[in-house]
């Protein structure tokens, strides 16, 4: 071991002493060294200074990183995590609406074995129901107050536009089950609005 290695080895032992890691014979040896060596005492002080220097408070990040972290977390959420509960909730809700519509209309076509086919059937049932409700709802709309009617026209126009866009997307990917579901959601919304219109008109008629 050369002089430099010896010096490093001694510094290692003194570092352990500074941290209180020594005991027994090793501790006794260092205490004896410190009692006899001014250089060793100075090195202990230097090691303590070094430790204190390292512990000096550091500044934080240059900016608040949380917004970027939150954005990354949101962006990386698996689509299915969000979509799955909604999707199955919707399929259930769609089934309920279809059942409701079926009471007012002829029975929908029999179900086919695949989910995609079933969704396609549901779409057809919705579309047929909407057609059949159209006349009744048109008449109902005419009975509503002007401000309500205007709101309704806007709502229906928005849903119709979204339906057209979804149908255009579906024409590009006719087997996409998510496209089917999105379209079903829009049909469902339209049925809900038409039902509300008819119900409101019936209430108004009863009241008058």
């Amino acid at each position, binding site marked *: 071991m050369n002089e*430099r290695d010896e*010096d*490093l*080895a001694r*510094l*290692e*032992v003194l*570092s*352990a002493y500074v*941290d209180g*890691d020594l005991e027994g014979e090793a501790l006794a040896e260092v205490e004896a060294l410190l009692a006899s060596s001014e250089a060793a005492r100075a*090195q202990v002080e*230097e*090691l303590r*200074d*070094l*430790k204190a*220097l*390292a*512990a*000096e408070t*550091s*500044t*934080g*990040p*240059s*900016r608040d*990183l*949380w917004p*970027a*972290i*939150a954005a*990354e*977390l949101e962006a*990386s959420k698996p689509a299915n995590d969000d979509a799955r509960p909604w999707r199955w909730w919707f399929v259930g809700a769609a089934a309920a609406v279809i059942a409701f519509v079926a009471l007012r209309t002829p029975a929908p076509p029999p179900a086919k074995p695949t989910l995609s086919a079933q969704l396609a059937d549901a779409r057809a049932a919705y579309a047929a129901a909407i057609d059949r409700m159209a006349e009744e709802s048109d008449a109902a709309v005419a009975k509503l107050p002007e401000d309500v009617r205007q709101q309704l026209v806007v709502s229906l126009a928005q849903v119709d536009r979204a339906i057209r866009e979804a149908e255009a997307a579906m024409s590009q990917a006719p087997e996409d089950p998510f496209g089917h579901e999105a379209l079903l959601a829009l049909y469902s919304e339209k049925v809900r609005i038409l039902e509300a219109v008819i119900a409101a008109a019936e209430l108004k008629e009863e009241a008058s």
Partner: protein
Amino acid sequence: MDPDADLVEQARRGDMKAMEQLYRRHQGAVYAYALRSTGRPDAADEITQDTFVRAFRGVDRFRGGSKFSTWLFSIAVNQTRTRLAKDARAAVPLEAEVEATTTPEPTGWLRRRLEAALATLPEGYREVVVMHDVLQMPHEEIAEARNCTVGTSKSQLHKARAKLRALLGDEHERAR
């Protein structure tokens, strides 16, 4: 009892506010570790951000076998190692750092020297110095975060300090 346990549980359920609180609690230490390890504020920002993103994405895998902060630091260690390897960043030559420094006040100057010297240490030495002396983490947590034994952690710390003391020797004398 891990002081972060409740927040971690909420974070597991996707609570962003809990995640933000965990970030606020630990961002300073993670950043300090990254900065002292890389010597570069921009890299430290990125490592800090990546560490928290990875931690929260994988918080389901944290089973509470250690403190959350220890687990977080194991991620920070890996992120820092990856970053340093990716950059293939050569250690900043100590003399270059000295030349770039004019005549600032001794403590600040010595701190810069320390940071430059840290960058020249082998990875394991640097990690343990930063965790123990900068972040004041106990050896038990350091060992867990670095996947080594407590004995190795202590041994590496004392070897690292000896090297640092040797590197800083004359300047340290001058500053005292």
